[in-house]
């Protein structure tokens, strides 16, 4: 599997990472190098093997339905690039 420049552009868009035209070719080569390396996984016969998503084989612990959090908006919004009237501001979202 080898990535084309269009593939790189699509992945970069999905990842929301801007790549200049110049960076794209370089990125393509590097990603293809890595993909070439992980390609060896394809040769392994894994039929009948269940995928392992977690390092431990236990089930989920659940939380009681209790409100434990208090208002920390001022602390949190002190970290934000842009806020107004308690809202985080971003460029206009068009639907």
């Amino acid at each position, binding site marked *: 599997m080898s990535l084309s420049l269009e593939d790189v552009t699509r992945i970069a*868009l999905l990842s929301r990472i801007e790549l200049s035209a110049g960076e794209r070719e370089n990125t393509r080569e590097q990603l293809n190098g890595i993909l070439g390396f992980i390609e060896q996984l394809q040769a392994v016969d894994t039929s009948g093997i269940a995928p392992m998503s977690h390092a431990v084989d236990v*089930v*989920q612990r659940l939380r009681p339905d209790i*409100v434990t*959090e208090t*208002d920390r908006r001022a602390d949190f919004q002190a970290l934000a690039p842009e806020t107004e009237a308690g809202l*985080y*501001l971003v460029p*206009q979202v068009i639907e």
Partner: protein
Amino acid sequence: MKWEVVIGLETHAQLQTKSKIFSGSSIAFGAAPNVQASAVDIALPGVLPVLNREAVVCAIKFGLAVGAQIAPRSIFARKNYFYPDLPKGYQISQFETPVVSGGGLMIRVGSGDTATEKFVQLTRAHLEEDAGKSLHEDFQGRTGIDLNRAGTPLLEIVTEPDMRSSAEAVAYAKALHALVQWIGICDGNMQEGSFRCDANVSVRPLGQKEFGTRREIKNLNSFRFMQQAIDFEVQWQINEIEEGRAIRQATVLFDPDSGETRSMRSKEDAHDYRYFPDPDLLPLEITADWIAQVQSGLPELPQAMKTRFESDYGLSSYDAAALTMTRATAEFFEDATAATGKGNGKLCANWVTGELAAHLNKTDMPIEASPVSAAQLAGVIRRIADNTISNKIARDVFEALWSGDGKDADAVIEAKGWKQITDTGAIEALVDEVLAANQKSVDEYRAGKEKAFNALVGQAMKVTKGKANPQQVTDLLKKKLSA
């Protein structure tokens, strides 16, 4: 050409928990922006989700209520996309193994005796978190983000493409709306967004097997809009096809002002959600014991109750359906019936679906807020049943109770002196008086004019201000006139 409409619904029901699905923040509606957005909700670096047990209980209740399979092990997955109201850049949802699959809902389409029943199959229901809100006004070309809603627990309920008209879609949505409130997992408040529907709509030539290309109408927040939106969309699709244009899959919004649906612009870059099992959340296990425990706490379900009403009280399917539309209505009816005796079930049903429903409708009031309680209505019905008052007087008593004029039926009857005259001697004297004073009517009746008899009954009732027992009056009049 004849066209067939195919509709599937996806409903997001906000679950009635105290805290969010993966954090300890409150989900109370109406708080100031972002004060209910904790470190987990705003996705600070390093924070982790922990699942709210009550949200799972809600899903189990729903699964039981619709006769679905509840997965002994289900998986939470990440749905990846960037949006400012989605703080983590992914939504925690369920993808391959949802908590609930299968099951279905019986719906009633149409009204009265012409109504038909139909079973709508459910595909699945899964747990997920809600996103925040984007506010587009007032910030000079900027969008404001409020994350109070982010992380609110949702149950997304997906049907098979089983509905064939907007009426069926609305009937399903109403039945689902009633059910989630009935089992206490959702408050059903559509204005506040607690119950939101998306409709997948397509059309195909009648008789064709394959589905047409569908368009998804997002965020239908009232039943009326649902009907309008689907009707518009169906007509639009038919027109497109008839004019030779193919339907392209799209997400559309309904504009209530214009009554039209339009395609959303922001979705142009093809989504690739890259679902994968959330490594922060281990498999969710639901044991048979847990299901049994939830089952034991579940109220009697509307369908079962309807059947019971029909057999226990001899109600028509229509009445039983009307009484089991909401749990509050059913409880009101059962409370009233219990207080009057089972034999009066039919009478109680008539009053709840008749006089009471009419009053509630007129004032746009839910039955929970009815000024006439079940006990008060039972009091009225008891006096009808024991002939203390006539049906006509009963309506006046009800009216008095509705406007707070008296604490119960007996008090009203007493205060107004509306007690029915049933004493045979008194009624006989009354009848003689009426016959003597209305010789003209007597003559006409004897001459074969049936209507004249009604006039005599009317006179008797008028003289007694409706208090005479109409049956006794009728019987005595007949006896005297034929003598």
